């Protein structure tokens, strides 16, 4: 589904990603964990074309997409739920969701997808005419995910969806991510909440200071003492 090879990205003189490579197979849940500033968000923004890489390549379903505009990448089936949700505060929930389908012309299927989103997130149906800015943090996160789903993505990328949410909402979020995956979406999940992410993930990558430093299955990394020490709040052995 997604193949990222030796990607380098910089903000002016500051290099944010050094030769990052990773892959996501169709149907997988893959997570990228790491501390703040490790380059996780940069990676997602580059994949969906908001940032342009200095070098390296990104392939989506075998087709090179690095260097393309984000509108093209969204049309090719990638959707991003950005860190901090970024819903449109003075537009209704309905308008927010409609904007997720901005590039689609198949209005019949869009209506069906809207129905699906509202079934997964019943709270959004209740608030359909309310402004996005009036929702609680958890509801805004649901809206941001719903908005991303409205482009009918094959690859759904979530950036820190659990940030600032109550534990019960985080659990609910985990269930929803699993459901979306079961319904056919490939998931790339970036999280600082490593425990939740590793439990969900088929495979995981650990990033530190712009590099991938470890990778493995979710279970392997959960059991790994160095990962426990650094990202799961555990204590290093000895």
């Amino acid at each position, binding site marked *: 589904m997604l193949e990222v090879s030796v990607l380098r990205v910089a903000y*002016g003189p500051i290099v944010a990603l050094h030769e990052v490579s990773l892959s996501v197979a169709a149907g997988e849940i893959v997570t990228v964990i790491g501390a703040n500033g490790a380059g996780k968000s940069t990676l997602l923004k580059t994949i969906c074309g908001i940032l342009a890489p200095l070098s390296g390549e990104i392939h989506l379903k075998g087709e090179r997409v690095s260097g393309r505009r984000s509108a093209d990448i969204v049309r090719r089936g990638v959707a991003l739920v950005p860190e901090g949700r970024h819903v*449109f505060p003075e537009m209704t929930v309905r308008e927010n969701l409609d904007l997720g389908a901005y590039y689609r012309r198949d209005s019949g299927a869009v209506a069906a997808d809207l129905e699906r989103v509202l079934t997964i997130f019943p709270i959004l149906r209740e608030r359909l005419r309310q402004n996005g800015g009036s929702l609680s943090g958890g509801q805004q996160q649901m809206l941001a995910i719903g*908005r991303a789903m409205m482009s009918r993505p094959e690859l759904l990328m979530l950036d820190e969806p659990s940030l600032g949410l109550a534990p019960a909402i985080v659990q609910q979020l985990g269930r929803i991510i699993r459901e979306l995956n079961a319904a056919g979406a490939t998931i790339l999940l970036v999280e600082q909440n490593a425990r939740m992410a590793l439990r969900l993930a088929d495979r995981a990558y650990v990033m530190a200071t712009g590099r991938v430093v470890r990778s493995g299955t979710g279970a392997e990394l959960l059991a790994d003492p160095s990962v426990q020490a650094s990202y799961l709040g555990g204590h290093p052995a000895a």
Partner: protein
Amino acid sequence: MLAQQIANGIVLGSIYALSALGFTLVFGAARIVNFAYGEILMIGAFFTVALMGALDIDFFVALPVAMVGVAALSAVLFYVALRPVMKSSHTSLQAELQIILVTLGLLYLLREAAVLIWGTAPRPIEMGVDGIVEIGDVVMTTKRLVVVAVMGVLVLGLYLLLYRTRIGKALRAIAQNREGAAAIGLDADRIIAFVFAISGAMACAAGSLLGTLYAVEPAMGGPPLLKAFVIVIFGGLGSVPGAIVGGLAIGLIETLAGAYVSFAFKDVFAFLALIAVLLLRPAGLFGRPAS
């Protein structure tokens, strides 16, 4: 007397609102303070004059054509002069400072270009509408009524564009949350270029209408820019209703203060009103408090 002054204030306020709309749209969507906006307005007025002269056509035919021309010019200026600066700067402060300098540079470039092409002599625009309308005690030239009507039509058009079209929805999305818009793949450059085009068309209409009431000359852009600034801060930066209400309010305040207090000090009252609004609502009448 009062009704007459209110009517005069609404005419002035209509032109103010029109000038402020184009200015506030660009600020709202692109966070760009366009110091060259007054010059775009002036170039727009000259476009109308030039079209009327060269093709011997009516004001109401020339105006829409000039608006399309200025819209194109404004979008091209964005792509040529502003977008490269936005792309090449890595921090928002750096970008903001550079954009201010570029728009200031455009101000002088456009003004001097107008002097070279059209000279400095003021030229009137003949709207071709004569006569006087009397409503009760209020007496007004038909021309001034047309100014208000044109403003009404353009505001309605802008409303429909923003709230009833696809691109209008994208435009509001970009204005409300740039990162959210990027996440769903909206093409900020194209949409901002479109905003510049709309802004240019509004400026052209405002400048041409000013030209029918007064005259068209290369230096005419300064006062409307300053007024647009006041109105947009008064009404709330980036707010469309704020620009309309603010424009009409400032027009009324100036006219009433000029008639009843002191004509020489009419601007003082506009600024007093601005200060009062800023004290009571720092984000402006329709502004959103910074989050």
